[in-house]
């Protein structure tokens, strides 16, 4: 049974994964396989978005199907400022966070009046609205998008034009986000959020204004996703409304389910598994979506608790009873 946060005796495994991620640039530079550094960077950036979604979905029980909107806002912040030849990284980052906070606040105030399937539908609707807003903005390339000729400028200290520096930046941000979520869910605020997920009526009867707590949580999560969008814009050097498409929101949910809902590190293993599968399957056959779908169904049906659940069962088989 899960209490606040599942007992993290699996933490050692996840820390090893993080450590291995630290070594990726060393391996790719040594072997000259730059492509894999790109793939790994993309995994880290999407993992950040998934970590942010896990805060509201995994811990708070708010299933948002519009999370890609925040990623898009973050990316467009880089794109639009660059378009006006403002390259200051702090401005880009500030724009990404401010934009996502604002969008989370405004849409959250409406979405969070609803619950369950209505919440899913309204988050989807808002994200699609934003998608079509950017499709109609001719100035910023409409549905063709915009090229970004220069990445965010953080001075000589942090030159993210360099692929390895960008990779480590993304890794540091990911670690920071995981740390933040860890603190939040174990602090008073996180306990309230988890309580609301399980029994909102009871939490209100205990004196909690649940709507405000959920809204705050939604805004924090949105801001975090905005940061991942900021990194994604810099990484791809290109932005388009397609980044906000609901299929990408769905992929983020898949990553979480694949990794294990409401588990601190699960979005990382989920993003790793998702993108590695996508990459390897699509190199085998053009019909890879079919195999991919079957694997996802199998994990959901049989891998109770996703990869985390499978890991727990493997561990408990190894050392009897300890999990």
């Amino acid at each position, binding site marked *: 049974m899960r209490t606040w946060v599942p007992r993290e005796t699996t933490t050692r495994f996840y820390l090893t994964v993080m450590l291995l991620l630290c070594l990726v640039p060393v391996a790719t530079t040594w072997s000259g396989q730059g492509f894999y550094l790109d793939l790994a960077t993309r995994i880290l950036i999407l993992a950040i978005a998934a970590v942010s979604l896990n805060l509201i979905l995994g811990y708070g029980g708010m299933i948002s199907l519009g999370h890609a909107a925040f990623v898009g806002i973050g990316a467009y912040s880089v794109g639009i400022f660059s378009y006006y030849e403002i390259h200051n990284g702090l401005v880009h980052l500030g724009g990404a966070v401010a934009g996502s906070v604002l969008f989370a606040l405004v849409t959250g105030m409406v979405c969070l009046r609803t619950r369950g399937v209505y919440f899913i539908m309204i988050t989807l609707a808002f994200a699609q609205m934003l998608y079509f807003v950017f499709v109609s903005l001719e100035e910023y390339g409409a549905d063709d998008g915009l090229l970004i000729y220069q990445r965010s400028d953080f001075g000589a200290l942090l030159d993210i034009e360099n692929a390895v520096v960008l990779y480590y930046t993304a890794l540091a941000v990911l670690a920071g986000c995981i740390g933040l979520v860890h603190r939040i869910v174990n602090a*008073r605020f996180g*306990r309230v959020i988890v309580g609301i997920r399980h029994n909102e*009526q009871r939490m209100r*009867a205990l004196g909690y204004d649940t709507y405000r707590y959920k809204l705050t949580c939604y805004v924090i999560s949105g801001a975090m996703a905005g940061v991942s969008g900021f990194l994604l814009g810099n990484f791809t050097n290109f932005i388009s409304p397609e980044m906000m498409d609901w299929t990408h929101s769905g992929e983020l949910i898949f990553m979480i389910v694949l990794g294990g809902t409401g588990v601190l590190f699960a979005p990382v293993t989920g993003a790793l598994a998702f993108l590695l599968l996508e990459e390897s399957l699509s190199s085998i056959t053009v019909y890879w979506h079919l195999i991919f779908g079957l694997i996802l169904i199998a994990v959901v049906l049989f891998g109770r608790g996703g990869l985390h659940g499978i890991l727990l069962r493997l561990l408990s088989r190894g050392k009897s009873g300890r999990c």
Partner: protein
Amino acid sequence: MLRTIGLNKSFGGISASSDINLEVSGKEIRAVVGPNGAGKTTLIAQLSGLLRPDSGTIIFGGKDVTNAGVHSRARMGLARSFQITSIILPLTVLDNVMLSVQSVSGHSYRFWKPVSAEREMHEKAMRNLAEVGLAAVSDRVAAELSHGEQRQLEIAMALALDPRMLLLDEPTAGMSREESGHMVRLLSGLKGQTAMILIEHDMNAVFALADTVSVMVDGRIIASGTTDEIRRDPAVRRAYLGDSRA
């Protein structure tokens, strides 16, 4: 402590509360009895803020709370238990009570300090658990408790709010005789500590606990008085006691 003036509430054409005037003062324990469908739970729902009355006023602790939400009434000291046990099943017994304690010990917009480091909250929660006799099972997951223990936990969560008044919706519902005896002893131990409004079908429990009784039939309070007065009231015997109990 709590007063209602002319509460009315109807659903469709059916009147669930009509002209309810109720006054509970000091640390009084008021039982509300009446046949099924008399509107007792609807009354509790209006008192706790879950439902808004169509008309009328609710005054709690000298303040008009008619339009206050559930959470703000709880913060003012109006705690409740539900007819169908409402606890947070996947959490431990202690964590359930800790959430109550947390609610009244300052705000919860704290994002950094782990709750496990807040010793005082922990100790307060353990005291409340001891009060209802659940200290020994504090580490168990709430879902694993027996029905009776879960009802006790709900009382502990309400007590942890340091309430000025408890609204208890059938605290002995679905309990074995032994369990309900335990609950009655637990509640009578709280006499003089807090005011209570108690909905209860078990007349033995009512007469053991209540100072005063109000009898509801078809959305109206047909009689109010001390337990002895109610026991003797012929209209009450006809409308309620006589029907279900020989």
